[in-house]
């Protein structure tokens, strides 16, 4: 089996995870910028984090033979402070020049506030001006349905945005159709408690079709499972899906979306 892990927060994981992912067939890892579990006190904290994502972490991944790519933004949990958010938006362009950066993400909403929406719009503007791919985080639990609707409204309001260059992540049964019907890519995140289990993820793929979907583990510092994607691939096999279908979902699809950025080269 070969697979691409398109969404993992490796800065929060131990080296054993890299080794296990590689042994399970992972051929590349992509890491969106996210919340550290605490609020950073200034733009300097983000500067250091972006250095970690674009310099240190690729070197750590390379020790296990894994190409590492990153996405940059200030996440919605810290976007409520608009002054800080705008300071961070100001330093992103210099990091976009770094070789492993694939785009702007994971942007989106958390509690569906006016400030979060304003900063989301500014991230989308930044992505449009710099012709970047976009990776969107949708809110958690009870906030997801409302937040996904609001995010779609914001994206559709910007005529420069091509939905085929945007992936909206963490969809579940109540949001997957609205994302795909609007022409965007959809990501299914595999978590032990929230988001989707392997069985539900495959249900969604079987019902929606696998055209513009990817699976990810989004492993971080919370309860999460770095091998969730290969585990789900095995589950697909148990349901009778062909090796080719599994490969298309866990390798072909992320390859197709991410290759829209010519920097995404894996040998």
């Amino acid at each position, binding site marked *: 089996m070969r697979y691409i892990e398109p969404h993992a927060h490796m800065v929060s994981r131990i080296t054993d995870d890299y080794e296990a992912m590689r042994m399970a067939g992972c051929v590349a890892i992509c890491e969106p910028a996210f*919340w550290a579990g605490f609020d950073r006190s200034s733009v300097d904290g983000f500067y250091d984090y972006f250095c970690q994502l674009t310099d240190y972490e690729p070197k750590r991944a390379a020790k296990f033979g894994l190409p590492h790519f990153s996405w940059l933004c200030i996440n919605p*949990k810290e976007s*409520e402070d608009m002054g800080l958010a705008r300071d961070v938006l100001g330093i992103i362009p210099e990091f976009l020049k770094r070789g492993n950066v694939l785009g702007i993400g994971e942007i989106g909403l*958390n*509690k*569906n*506030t*006016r*400030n*979060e*929406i304003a900063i989301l719009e500014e991230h989308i503007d930044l992505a449009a001006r710099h012709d970047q791919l976009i990776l969107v985080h949708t*809110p*958690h*639990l*009870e*906030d*997801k*349905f*409302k937040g996904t*609707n*609001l995010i779609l409204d914001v994206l559709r309001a910007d005529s420069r945005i091509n939905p085929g260059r945007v992936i909206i992540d963490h969809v*579940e*049964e*109540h949001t997957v159709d609205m994302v795909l019907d609007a022409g965007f890519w959809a990501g299914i995140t595999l978590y032990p408690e*929230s988001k989707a289990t392997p*069985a*539900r993820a495959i*249900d969604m793929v079987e019902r929606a079709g696998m055209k513009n979907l990817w699976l990810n583990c989004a492993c971080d510092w919370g309860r999460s499972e770095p091998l969730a994607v290969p585990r789900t691939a095995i589950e697909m096999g*148990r*349901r*009778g899906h062909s090796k080719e279908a599994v490969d298309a979902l866990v390798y072909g699809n992320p390859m197709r979306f991410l290759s829209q950025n010519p920097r995404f080269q894996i040998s």
Partner: protein
Amino acid sequence: MTRDQVLDLYFMDARCKLIELAAFLDRVDRSEGEADFRLAAIRKALPLLSSAHAERAKSVLMALSDPTVVPISAATGKGACGAWPGATP
């Protein structure tokens, strides 16, 4: 897959989760004090499991979701709890 194949793959897992849910409700009953809106949200979602139409997972998720459409003015916290407080008066 045939229905029997689905049962072969998933029956024990579903049985386990069903008993866990029953035991959780018993545990809540045995405990003291008032329950907040989260228990009411689960009770409201339970009948959806025995409904005839085939979008039960989506229906349960919707029963636990904020259905409003207007952004809120400011966040009071960062987290989500899994049920929408506005669903119960």
